[in-house]
């Protein structure tokens, strides 16, 4: 068997399953080395089908490579490595084990050449990620359950779509589709559940912030970005995705502006960023798809960096709410600086990774003369700086002096943050390597005078708006209701009321039935009891009289 025939996903999945049986030091080594080995294998995957297995008369393409697959698999492996480094001191082995399986499954999705393999890895991801959420302890139980239910529902949509597609076309091949049948609509819906698109986006800010300080780092990367990958593979240029994506952009911003919990701010901001990518997929030109792919790549890195920074604060202080935090830059300089690098990258500041990726999506819109889409993306970019670029570092590290004096986290957590900070700036300064990995040839120069000046004006004046309107943005101990209200509140209230209503209705039914039966018994008794009209014994004479009368009547009638 050649190296190219080893599915890269298998290394992390098997490694994850074996992890609990290893000694602590071996476990640490496995956490760091397995992702690197996987990365090597990813780059050995040639173009085309590299591993095929027969199954129930179908040929499953377990590993099928091309530039897009390798790009996503690469960043997933890099993420698994940095996440593992950050989580080295995480004592809950279940989380680490689940995280490796989760990362491996995401890589499996990236290389799946047919719909059935895709579905299997898709469900593995759901299981792995649910275990990552749950391993945070009892406080995450409810959110984890809601998360699992939502992803199993998404899986059911996908499975139904796959079955329908196979029944209609007889083919399992996963390639570009148009939304022209119910099964394909179901496949798209299944993908969009994982992307965090409306109406099912609330699972993300509900579940991710409940995971542990290290768990959210893994969660932020794989589910939503593998969804972006399958959308790019299956539905590029589907116009619907432009509107879905733009809605996600603004939904994320508005909810993040209102949010007080720093990790929920970052969770909403994932929806916002995935919205940019989904819009790019919807535009569907080579420029826009390159933009969406590169933005997924850079986003995984800077978002993980932001969440590592927030995770470090949570790890050292045990606090998540902006209203409890502030002034931490004094004693957590590394965490603060790395957080700011992540914040600048997510805001697409020139010389950071976000700038060289997101601008390609806007350029895609401009090339297609989609004026409204272009304006909305620009307004969205301003909003990103507002809700994540300044809000997160400002309220956590500056703002007021909370009196907290935690130190920077342990070396491995600092190392992971510094590694990703270097990547954020490195990719921003020298985008050539990333551009060379993209699915299409890049004809785009990010650093033109107009791009840079426009972006600087946009961001700096967004910053001005933030500080001028700071009073309006004061943090309060509140949450903002989302569509999950329907199943978290309406559902439970309805269930409680249903119980009461059903009890009352049953009681009434029993009472009415009893009354009816009693009435019937009384009626029977009235006529048929020993002293009732029909129950009485009659004298023989009266019977003879009536018989005679009837015979007489018969006689008369027969003569007439």
């Amino acid at each position, binding site marked *: 068997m050649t190296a190219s025939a080893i599915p890269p996903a298998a290394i992390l999945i098997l490694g994850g399953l074996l992890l609990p049986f290893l000694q602590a030091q071996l476990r640490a080594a496995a956490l760091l080395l397995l992702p690197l080995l996987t990365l090597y294998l990813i780059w050995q995957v040639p173009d085309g089908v590299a591993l095929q297995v027969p199954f129930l008369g179908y040929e499953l393409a377990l590993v099928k490579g091309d530039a897009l697959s390798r790009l996503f698999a690469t960043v997933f492996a890099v993420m698994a490595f940095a996440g593992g480094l950050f989580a080295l001191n995480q004592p809950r082995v279940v989380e680490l084990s689940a995280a490796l399986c989760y990362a491996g499954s995401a890589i499996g999705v990236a290389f799946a050449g047919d719909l059935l393999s895709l579905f299997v890895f898709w469900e593995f991801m759901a299981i792995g990620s649910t275990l990552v959420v749950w391993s945070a302890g009892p406080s995450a139980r409810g959110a984890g359950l809601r998360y699992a239910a939502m992803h199993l529902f998404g899986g059911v949509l996908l499975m139904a779509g796959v079955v329908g597609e196979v029944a209609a076309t007889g083919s399992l091949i996963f390639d570009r589709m148009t939304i022209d049948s119910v099964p394909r609509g179901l496949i798209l819906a299944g993908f969009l559940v994982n992307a965090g698109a409306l109406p099912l986006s609330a699972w993300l800010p509900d579940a991710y912030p409940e995971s542990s300080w290290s768990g959210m780092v893994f969660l932020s990367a794989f589910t939503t970005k593998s969804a972006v990958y399958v959308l790019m593979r299956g539905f590029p240029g589907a116009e619907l995705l432009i509107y879905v994506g733009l809605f996600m952009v603004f939904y994320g911003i508005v909810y993040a502006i209102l949010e007080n*919990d720093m990790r929920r701010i970052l969770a909403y901001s994932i929806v916002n960023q995935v919205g940019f990518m989904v819009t790019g997929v919807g535009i569907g030109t080579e420029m826009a798809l390159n933009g969406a792919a590169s933005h997924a790549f850079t986003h995984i890195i800077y978002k993980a960096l932001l969440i590592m920074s927030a995770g470090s604060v949570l790890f050292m202080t045990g606090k998540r709410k902006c209203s409890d935090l502030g002034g931490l830059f004094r004693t957590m300089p590394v965490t603060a600086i790395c957080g700011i690098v992540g914040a600048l990258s997510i805001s697409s500041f020139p010389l950071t990774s976000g700038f060289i990726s997101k601008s390609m999506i806007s350029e895609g819109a401009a090339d297609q003369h989609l004026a409204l889409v272009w304006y909305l993306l620009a*307004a969205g970019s301003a909003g990103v700086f507002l809700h994540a670029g300044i809000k997160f570092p400002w309220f956590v590290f500056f703002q007021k002096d909370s009196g907290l004096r935690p130190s920077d986290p342990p070396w491995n957590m600092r190392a992971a943050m510094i590694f990703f900070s270097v990547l954020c700036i490195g990719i921003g300064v020298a985008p050539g390597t990333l551009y060379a990995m993209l699915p299409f040839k890049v004809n785009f120069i990010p650093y033109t*005078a107009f791009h840079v000046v*426009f972006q600087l*004006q946009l961001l*700096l004046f967004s910053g001005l708006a933030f500080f001028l309107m700071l009073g309006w943005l004061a943090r309060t101990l*509140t949450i903002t209701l989302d569509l999950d209200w329907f199943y978290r509140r309406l559902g439970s209230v309805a269930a409680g009321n249903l119980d009461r209503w059903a009890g009352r209705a049953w009681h009434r039914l029993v009472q009415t039935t009893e009354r009816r039966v009693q009435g019937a018994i009384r009626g029977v008794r009235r006529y048929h009891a020993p002293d009732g009209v029909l129950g009485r014994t009659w004298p023989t004479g009266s019977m003879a009289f009536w018989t005679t009368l009837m015979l007489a009547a018969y006689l008369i009638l027969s003569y007439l």
Partner: protein
Amino acid sequence: MKDHWLVRESTIRRLWVTFVIVLVVTVLVDLLVQHDGQFWLTGTFGFGAWFGFASCVALILLSKALGAVLRRPDTYYDR
């Protein structure tokens, strides 16, 4: 103990002054830059500046309005 130099009033004032100078410069640089002028507003003077500022104000107002209806105490779901 004296507080960190970064949060002293004099520093904050200096930061504001620097910030305003940077803002003015980024707008003035607009005069030297060839605008792409893809769409009818992108060619206006200081487009990024006013568009960014206006977008943020609009987004903050939008979230305030939404918050007025949908905000609940953060213990809402714990009850």
